[in-house]
């Protein structure tokens, strides 16, 4: 999700991801007949929607949704359940009358369409309907344990329906490392790891969750994560040739960290960002509009896309230039929404209100309808009843943060789920729409309701999820569907931030710098410089696929860094300190400590024996332990959140 905003980002293959959900899922439904979302829409999108979709509706026919198909166009209903011969769609396809000007459909595609109509127009959404009801009543806040049980109920229900069993609950070490990385963005220190593993308190997991939610690193980690979702740190900045001011963007992360640590409710946090006004001094969140704008300036369209993606979970970018052919909103709706952000001007350091009549003229940069004036309005057509001259943003935020707003709580709950499970309940997380149904509709409703009822309490929602068995399951196992349905924890690649913070712990060096360059290679202030500061360089080198954390994207340079970088071959200061303090330390003790500081667990019998044998064969103990440390950070297990 390096870019939830407009287009992509890095290796964005978001669309592929959605499609990957459907076939897998539906296959488990053992539905043999074609399904609308899985089988039919791809054919229609490729062949038909160019003329009969959001962009054009030739002969008044719109094929984007089932109701629209049933309504049909001038040629009568496009589809009639169970009756291909009465369906205009089938007739024109069967005769190769359609698609016009394109090669006719293949026999296979034709069969799909015909079978689908004959089978009575089955949809995946319909199949999933029975899972829509959440297990807890809406409108009231519940105890985390209760919610956690309901989460498990939804997940195991879905598993059972497919004849699958969830994976076992993870052992303490697996849980410990995962929770630290998820909530505090780093592995535990050896002491923290040992303390937890050795504790025999029955509720130590719940306690650790509370403890980590209260730690300052919680806010730091979530602040960085959201900062990166707003704007990745390695994009062009004043440090590497762009205009984005690095320091101020980092201050945004720090501001977010404070909000998360103080547990500012999500609606308040979003309101503080979106209604900000004045100078950047004392309000670092002001940079938001500049970061999501164009050429260092806030733009209504940039703000709209970013807000749609980050806070509403929808992709609006297509509608900027034309009616979205695949989603049910029009270009007018995009610009109606953009109208709210037309009542301000801003850049990286300043945001000012300006007087506008509550409408927006579609700019020239849009392909269609440039110059058309559109009144401000919310998505799906509702209009604000306010009458004001300046700054409509407050009106928008009032609408957005109402508890019953269909986007706000849902988008956050879904994104939080994505963060912990690598896949949203709706996936991708910024593409919620009728034709991209959730895998677990009831679960999403449950989390949405709970979040809204708690007054958008972020820590509460996290506490609910982390206390569930679902979160605490092992990642061991190979059945892909088990993981797709959240019955097993995913194996994830650590993000650059997690990796950097964890390496600092492994090496006992809070200033760990992995840049490799000589003095004459350039300076760091941007002038002819090939290198940024150590944080930016680390991000550049170890950035991951944030749309899919299970995708391993590192290559030779990353691996060579791990294998041969002089800093990682030097060992840690704590190694020296420890050896100095405990000159007669037993190899077993030292090795155990190294395991705890890297893999957050104690070595297994075989592992211990191997490492002891290794150190015994070395002349110099410090070198031997440094080698063991090198081995541990080079382990696959180290790079992953398992």
């Amino acid at each position, binding site marked *: 999700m390096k870019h939830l905003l407009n287009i992509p980002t890095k290796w964005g293959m978001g669309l592929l991801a959605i499609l990957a959900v459907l076939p897998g899922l539906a296959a488990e439904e053992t539905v043999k007949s074609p399904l609308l979302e899985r089988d039919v829409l791809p054919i229609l999108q490729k062949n038909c929607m160019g003329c009969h979709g959001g962009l054009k509706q030739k002969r008044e026919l719109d094929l984007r949704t089932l109701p629209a198909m049933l309504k049909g166009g001038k040629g009568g209903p496009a589809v009639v359940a169970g009756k291909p011969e009465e369906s205009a769609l089938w007739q024109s396809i069967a005769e190769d009358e359609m698609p016009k000007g394109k090669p006719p459909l293949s026999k296979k595609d034709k069969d799909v369409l015909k079978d689908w109509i004959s089978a009575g127009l089955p949809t995946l959404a319909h199949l999933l309907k029975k899972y829509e009801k959440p297990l807890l009543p809406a409108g009231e806040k519940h105890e985390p344990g209760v919610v956690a049980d309901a989460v498990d109920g939804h997940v195991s229900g879905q598993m059972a329906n497919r004849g699958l069993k969830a994976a076992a609950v993870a052992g303490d070490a697996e849980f410990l490392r995962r929770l630290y990385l998820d909530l505090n963005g780093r592995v535990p220190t050896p002491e923290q790891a040992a303390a937890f593993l050795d504790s025999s308190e029955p509720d130590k997991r719940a306690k650790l969750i509370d403890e980590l939610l209260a730690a300052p690193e919680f806010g730091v980690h979530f602040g960085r994560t959201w900062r990166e979702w707003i704007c990745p740190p390695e994009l062009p900045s004043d440090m590497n040739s762009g205009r984005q001011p690095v320091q101020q963007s980092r201050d945004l992360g720090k501001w977010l960290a404070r909000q998360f640590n103080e547990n500012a409710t999500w609606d308040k946090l979003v309101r503080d960002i979106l209604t900000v006004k004045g100078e950047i001094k004392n309000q670092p969140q002001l940079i938001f509009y500049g970061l999501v704008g164009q050429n260092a300036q806030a733009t209504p369209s940039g703000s709209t896309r970013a807000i749609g993606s980050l806070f509403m979970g929808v992709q609006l970018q297509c509608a900027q230039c034309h009616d979205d052919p695949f989603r049910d909103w029009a270009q007018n709706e995009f610009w109606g929404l953009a109208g709210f952000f037309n009542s301000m001007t801003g850049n990286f350091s300043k945001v000012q209100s300006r007087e506008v009549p509550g409408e927006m003229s579609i700019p020239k940069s849009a392909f269609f309808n440039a110059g058309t004036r559109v009144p401000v309005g919310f998505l799906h057509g509702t209009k604000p009843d306010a009458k004001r001259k300046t700054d409509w943003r407050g009106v928008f935020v009032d609408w957005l943060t109402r508890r019953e707003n269909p986007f706000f709580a849902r988008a956050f709950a879904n994104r939080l789920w994505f963060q912990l499970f690598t896949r949203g309940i709706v996936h991708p997380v910024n593409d919620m729409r009728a034709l991209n149904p959730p895998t677990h509709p009831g679960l999403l409703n449950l989390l949405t309701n709970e979040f809204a009822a708690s007054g958008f309490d972020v820590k509460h929602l996290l506490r609910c999820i982390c206390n569930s068995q679902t979160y605490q399951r092992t990642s061991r196992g190979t059945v892909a569907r088990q993981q797709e349905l959240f019955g097993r924890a995913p194996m994830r690649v650590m993000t650059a931030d997690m990796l950097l913070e964890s390496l600092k712990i492994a090496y006992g060096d809070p200033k760990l710098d992995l840049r490799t360059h000589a003095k004459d290679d350039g300076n760091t202030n941007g002038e002819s410089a090939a290198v940024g500061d150590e944080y930016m360089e680390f991000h550049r080198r170890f950035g991951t696929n944030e749309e899919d954390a299970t995708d*391993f994207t590192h290559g030779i340079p990353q691996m060579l860094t791990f294998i041969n970088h002089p800093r990682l071959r030097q060992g840690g200061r704590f190694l020296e300190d420890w050896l100095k303090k405990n000159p007669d330390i037993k190899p077993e003790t030292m090795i155990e400590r190294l395991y705890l500081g890297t893999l957050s667990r104690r070595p297994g019998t075989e592992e211990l024996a191997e490492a002891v044998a290794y150190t015994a064969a070395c002349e110099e103990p410090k070198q031997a332990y440094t080698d063991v440390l*090198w081995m541990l950070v080079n382990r696959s297990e180290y790079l992953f959140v398992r």
Partner: protein
Amino acid sequence: MNTHELFQRRDFLKLSAAGLLSGVSVPWFESMANAAGQVQRPRGKKCILLWMDGGPSQAHTFDPKPGGEFKSLPTTVPGIHVTEKFPKLAQCMKDMAFLRSMTTEINDHYDAKYYLHTGFRRVTNLEHPSIGSIASAFVGLPNDDMPAFVTIDAGNDKGNGGRFYRSVPAYLGPRHAPLAVQHPARGLENLKPDTRGLDRRLQLLGKGEERFAREYNLPVVNAKQAAFQRAVNLMHSPRARAFNLDNEPAAIREQYGEHRFGKSCLLARRLIESGVSFVEIFHRGWDDHEGAGMRIAARAPWMDGAMSTLILDLKQRGMLDDVLIVWMGEFGRTPGDGNGHFCRAWTSMMAGGGINTGQAVGATNENGKNPGDTITRRPITAPDFMATLCTILGIDPHQELMASGGRPMPLVDKKAKVVTELIA
């Protein structure tokens, strides 16, 4: 038959779904279907990009004008002249082609560097893949010991020239990021292993890795172990010796020259020979605001020597047809003294690559108050240039790739026209 690793690592289902949904043609998909019975390896040419960072003066290099600071010098191709400072290259003219009508709209260093590396204007929230990463994705050998794309820093003549552009793979994925050589004489960073107990360490590591792979037989784990293996292979590969210039005979090193640029050219040849598909050499400091004359007079000899040696060396090795050499900066300089940035009419050079060499494509005016400030024939825009480069390397510039959100991204701007004069 681009066995395009980007898509290779996605499974077939996802790939076909992308093709269906996007509604655009997916050429690699179709060609894969046609390719039954053929060896599945990438096809296309290799490339060495000589990037003169800061913008070299065309009037002081390859587009001499009457009355210019440098005299013009006939080459081995009648009718084509270079400036007097390039006697050796003048003798290689039959293997070179000038593009004298580059016209690229951007006079700002960084934006122009971005534009000429990607073919797209820079925008805020999206990065486009650079040509090296594109070549890595489409022409590079997947899973080779050697990286597909390497950049070499040939040093710094002068401290200005604006901020430095670094090639990014953008949506092509981080595997297509360049491997950066900071100094040609130092080779690849982190390549040289700390040999203290390396084999024993790897052995110790291997035992744990084996157990882990048995316990977690997941694609992500296999991918990590494969990448690690590739890095170790590279460390041990005889091909990696290419990074070390000491392995080259002294006579050849001398021909390339002792200058860091010459060493970079030699390293580039060694890398290309051992399997790298795209090498970008950048030499910084061509932003000659105080007059290009004396500056280029001092630079020309090492550039002349290294480039002509590179061309002749590749030719002697029978590789010149398979390797395209490109010489360029982000723009040219004002006609006359070369003081200012000048994007309206400037020159780039291509050599080898099996293109139609021995010609100058396009021309600038000879007469008038400012000779050389106007294009008189065949303007070439940045997208045109990029489309031409892709086509020569064997990459279809008109294909569309998928960026996130299902938005198809053309590899090169759709309006781009290939410079057909260059293509055999």
